[in-house]
């Protein structure tokens, strides 16, 4: 274990995060991958995320649920600093990745985004071939060797459960793929970065049940290698495809805990109301 992650673990053991710390049912101490500390986000000085304190462990699948406009997407985009692209974005608090503050000036944003890879709600293929789409990230990182790129493209498409379907269409325009194939290609495009954390923003919102099942299958496979943070509007998907679940409501993190507990015995009434469909 490196120094940085040890630091964040010590923080955790000191119990600086009341109510959100790792649950007792975990025998070994889990390694904290990301730690959000009193993190708030403002757009035009309007609060969108309020004082979020939460950790994300290595190798877990964390689902974030909540009604529309609760700040789910903003939370995800804070983790790879994609919010920085907005002119009226500002924040307070800190986010640590392996103990390193990602909003510090010396943080290199491009390499942060390679470590924390993001899949968007709708598939956004770039207008070029499937191969060039998947190889985009590695190429930007300076990978030139064709054999290395070939390897990365194949293994990423395999991990995204789409290789068999499109292996003969790599030189075709990505725009010709079906929606489900496009979204799995977009997942592969992120996997080709060999990220440490995978963040997914409602990745199945526009997909048919079969494509959704394939993506969930891929995520289940991937959690051994990555931490996965999944934002979803579909509470059933959260229940199926996550180890822990967090509930966001109007920018507040109401609760976060093991998925089985959040769904069967939530500690907050508002969580129960949302899950049972009383609002949202």
């Amino acid at each position, binding site marked *: 274990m490196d120094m940085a992650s040890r630091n964040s673990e010590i923080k955790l053991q000191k119990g600086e995060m009341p109510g959100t710390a790792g649950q007792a049912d975990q025998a070994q101490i889990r390694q904290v991958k990301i730690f959000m500390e009193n993190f708030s986000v403002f757009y035009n000085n309007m609060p969108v995320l309020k004082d979020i304190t939460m950790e994300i462990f290595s190798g877990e699948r964390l689902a974030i649920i909540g009604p529309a406009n609760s700040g789910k997407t903003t939370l995800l985009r804070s983790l*790879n600093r*994609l919010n920085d*692209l907005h*002119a009226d974005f500002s924040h307070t608090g800190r986010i640590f990745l392996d103990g390193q503050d990602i909003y510090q000036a010396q943080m290199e944003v*491009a*390499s942060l*985004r*390679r470590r924390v*890879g*993001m899949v*968007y709600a709708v598939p*956004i293929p*770039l*207008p*070029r071939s499937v191969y060039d789409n998947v190889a*985009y*990230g590695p190429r*930007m*990182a300076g990978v030139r060797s064709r054999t290395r790129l070939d390897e990365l493209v194949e293994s990423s498409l395999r991990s995204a459960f789409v290789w068999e379907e499109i292996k003969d269409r790599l030189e075709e*325009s990505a*725009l010709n793929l079906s929606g489900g194939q496009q979204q799995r290609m977009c997942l592969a*495009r*992120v996997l080709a*970065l060999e990220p440490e954390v995978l963040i997914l923003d409602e990745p199945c919102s526009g997909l048919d049940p079969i494509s959704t099942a394939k993506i969930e299958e891929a995520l289940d496979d991937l959690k051994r290698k990555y931490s996965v943070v999944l934002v979803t509007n579909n509470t059933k998907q959260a229940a199926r495809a996550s180890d822990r679940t967090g509930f966001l409501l109007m920018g507040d993190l109401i609760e976060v805990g093991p998925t089985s507990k959040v769904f069967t015995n939530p500690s907050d009434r508002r969580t129960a109301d949302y899950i049972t469909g009383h609002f949202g």
Partner: protein
Amino acid sequence: MRISPSVSQRVVVAGLWSLAILTIGVLLFIIGYILARGLPNVTWEFLADSPRRMGKEGGVFPMIVSTFMVAGLAVALAAPIGVMTAVYLTEYTREGKLTALIRFGADCLAGIPSIIFGLFGFVFFVIALGMGLSVISGALTLALMVLPTIIRTTEEAIKAVPKTYREVSYGLGGTRWQTVRHVVLRSAIPGICTGIVLAIGRSVSETAAVMLTAGSSLQLPQSLLDSSRTMSLHFYILSREGISMPAAFATASILIIAVLAINVAAYWLMSRFVARVA
């Protein structure tokens, strides 16, 4: 009295049709008229020969060369500057007073009559910088003149690239320049080419500005500092001074064909590029 929807539909379609036909008809008439009067006089000798007796006899070879030198140099200078300015305005600054001012300036420049550019070029390049009536003075003046067109068309082309493409590139660890180069410019190339084709067209056909800056020598320019006469200026002088109307129409025919050829070639290149990319 009410007009039934199907009647109004037919009236509108007929009206739009006749207007479209009228527009194209006028265009075809002008081109047809000039080609009909000019083409019979366009011979290999006319294309390859130097003018004699002020252009009454001989050909227009030096003018063809001058046109390509002046217009080519102008666009070669203006295109990179204009494209990079547009990239700066759209990708590297936030919208503010300064960008609004630059944009307003570009729009004003685009609306200034070319003779004013000619006057400026004459005072600044020809006299103040001592470049004389020369290819380089003409090219620099034309570059200034077409710069706003290139900036504005490139800007529009860049703005039309979906924001989500940029987010994908940044999200995959692309830096700003990598994103601009591999995603933004790549997707905007057809629009940028349109701007450059427009700029070439304006440069090739410009008369007033080059008359005051590039001069009207009948000699083949040997260097960038030599005076030269472009085809459109040659046409103007031939007809204005009543030297030779057949030679004037022949020159105009070559000019029209050249501009059409440049357009066709540019669009062909563009469509091939787009087909390869998408």
